[in-house]
């Protein structure tokens, strides 16, 4: 279990990272926006606002536990301990990246911390159940955590995986990040019930829904669920209400939001609220906070500089890694 200040610091690192990525993403894309242009081409899904779920859950996840992440993965990768330099180099498509430029921002793989990604909605549930099966057989107390958005809870993979995990009593935690919108479709229009956690009952496993985007509440619930899993008591479903402070992807005009909706989310910024809490409880001083802000900014700039200075792949590198040879 990390200290509160350490959790706060990770949240600040994620926020700084996403804010800088939003800026960098626009490079080479003006005056005319082209998704294919600039040092960071392709789609870009940022997770600013969703720091509490990443940090709250990951406070109880060990380096040798497995995490599967969806198309919006930066907060989860950072909180899991994926190397920031290599992750950033991957997002820049450089040879020093996690995948030497073959994956990009939606496909971050770091086996050294058992982190994997998929750009397909709902696809991370089954592999997490499989990893959990392997862990259960090892008797190692390791767990797997599958993260996905609330839109993914309407995929068949979600229901199939909950049932299979319950049958196998697999040490897995399913975390639904409910950020209110599946791209543009609000949860009320996509999901027949209010709380996805109610669906856990169908599979005979505990389900918890948390509102408020509160890192400490999330941490507490994750602690209980992960402890259960480690002790051999099987899976838990955790749904966490959170907020997506950028659009679905960069370039999303967000015309589907209600007037003032974004402003309201910003007013309830989870990082500001957590900082105030820490200040009030004398767990953090203004000077500490300034040092943290400086520290995370340095880390992010270092990673960006590393990525920019790293070599581009050679065209013929595209031909390798289809199969393991020999």
């Amino acid at each position, binding site marked *: 279990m990390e200290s509160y200040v350490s959790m706060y610091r990770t949240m600040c690192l994620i926020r700084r990272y996403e804010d800088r990525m939003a800026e960098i993403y626009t490079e080479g894309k003006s005056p005319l926006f082209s998704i294919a242009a600039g040092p960071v081409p392709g789609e870009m899904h940022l997770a600013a606002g969703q720091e509490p779920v990443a940090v709250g859950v990951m406070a109880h996840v060990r380096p040798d536990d497995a995490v599967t992440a969806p198309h919006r993965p930066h907060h989860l990768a950072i909180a899991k301990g994926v190397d920031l330099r290599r992750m950033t180099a991957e997002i820049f498509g450089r040879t020093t990246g996690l995948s030497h430029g073959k994956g990009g921002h939606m496909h971050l793989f770091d086996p050294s911390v058992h982190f994997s990604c998929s750009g397909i909605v709902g*696809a991370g549930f089954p592999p997490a159940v499989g990893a959990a099966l392997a862990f259960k057989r090892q008797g190692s107390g390791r767990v797997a955590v599958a993260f996905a958005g609330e839109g993914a809870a309407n995929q068949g993979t979600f229901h199939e995986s909950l049932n299979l995990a319950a049958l196998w009593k697999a040490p897995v935690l399913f975390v639904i990040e409910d950020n209110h919108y599946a791209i543009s479709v609000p949860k009320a229009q996509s999901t027949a019930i209010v709380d996805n956690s109610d669906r856990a009952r169908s599979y005979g496993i505990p389900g918890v829904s948390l509102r408020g985007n509160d890192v400490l509440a999330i941490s507490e619930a994750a602690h209980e669920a992960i402890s259960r899993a480690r002790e051999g008591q099987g899976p838990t479903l955790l749904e966490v209400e959170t907020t997506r402070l950028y659009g679905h992807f960069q370039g999303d005009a967000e015309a589907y939001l209600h007037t003032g909706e974004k402003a309201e989310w910003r007013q309830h910024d989870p990082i500001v609220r957590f900082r105030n809490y820490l200040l009030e409880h004398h767990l953090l001083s203004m000077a500490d906070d300034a040092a943290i802000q400086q520290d995370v900014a340095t880390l992010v700039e270092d990673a960006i500089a590393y990525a920019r200075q790293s070599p581009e792949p050679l065209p013929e590198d595209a031909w390798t890694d289809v199969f393991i040879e020999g």
Partner: protein
Amino acid sequence: MSTTTARKLTMARAISEAIGQEMAHDPNVLVWGEDVGVYGGIFGATQGLYAQFGEDRVLDTPISESAFIGAAIGASAEGLRPIVELMFVDFFGVAMDQIYNHLAKNHYMSGGSVRHPVVLMTAIGGGYSDAAQHSQTLYSLFAHVPGLKVVVPSNAYDAKGLMISAIRDDNPVMYFFHKGLLGLGWMPSDDWAEVHVPEDRYEIPFGQAQVVGTGTDLSIITIGAMVPKAMKARKLLQPAGIAVEVVDLRTLVPLDRKAIVETVMKTHRALIVDEDYRSFGMSGEIAAILAEEALDYLEAPVRRLAVPDIPIPYSRILEQSAIPSVEAITQAVHALME
């Protein structure tokens, strides 16, 4: 294939023996899927394994193909070597995302850092009136996607050696067994596939075709259940003085391009026989290879015999007209020799 002490096995038995021997050798090898446990696999490919290894290593799953095939992805990344059966190739539609977007691509998308040693096995083929959703072949669909190895044995000896190679391979392998070769008793099966199988654990390397019948006039290039049919046609054509060479590809990925070219350099005529659909598949791929690499050696245009682009029909008469038969192969050879 021949020894003095013949130990003939059905192809189903050869497959389960290969799996059992590898399971005994490596505790990380597990089997899961629908009815693979107590039942022993609907087509007998896991017969005896549950009794030998128990429910800890042979797991019956719910009918949740995305979940249990996707589970093999996570399990293999964490040290297991799952063999997953999904009864019929026709059923793969519901789980294709886990296969063609994840199992096949994770190694590449991770820059080579993630490995998925998984064998997905399934039954293919028609010939017993099971109609369009239980009789397809479809291996070309999987061969089309980069990152999957594709294995299609034609006999029990190959089936065992190819399965052992598949289990030991660190890449995902699609292993297709033809229902009409398995020796099941309750379904027509070609005796040709039931051959001597050594007891020892042996590998057959992928990407090595085998000339199962030599000839000088024409090459039939084929795979799976069409191999014995081609061999029967070859025999029927001998009295007419036509010497047919039959090449069993054994694997589509990797594909033995050299063997394809070499046989045509020798015979100068090629007939490709394929139980999959005709368009955009194996037969077209081999024809393209011959056009690219052996055009100068061809004395006649390449000819293809495959399932015409229609679903497999139910009626015995209709089905027999859809799937290449010994008679159709013989006719196609005659046409090519004219």
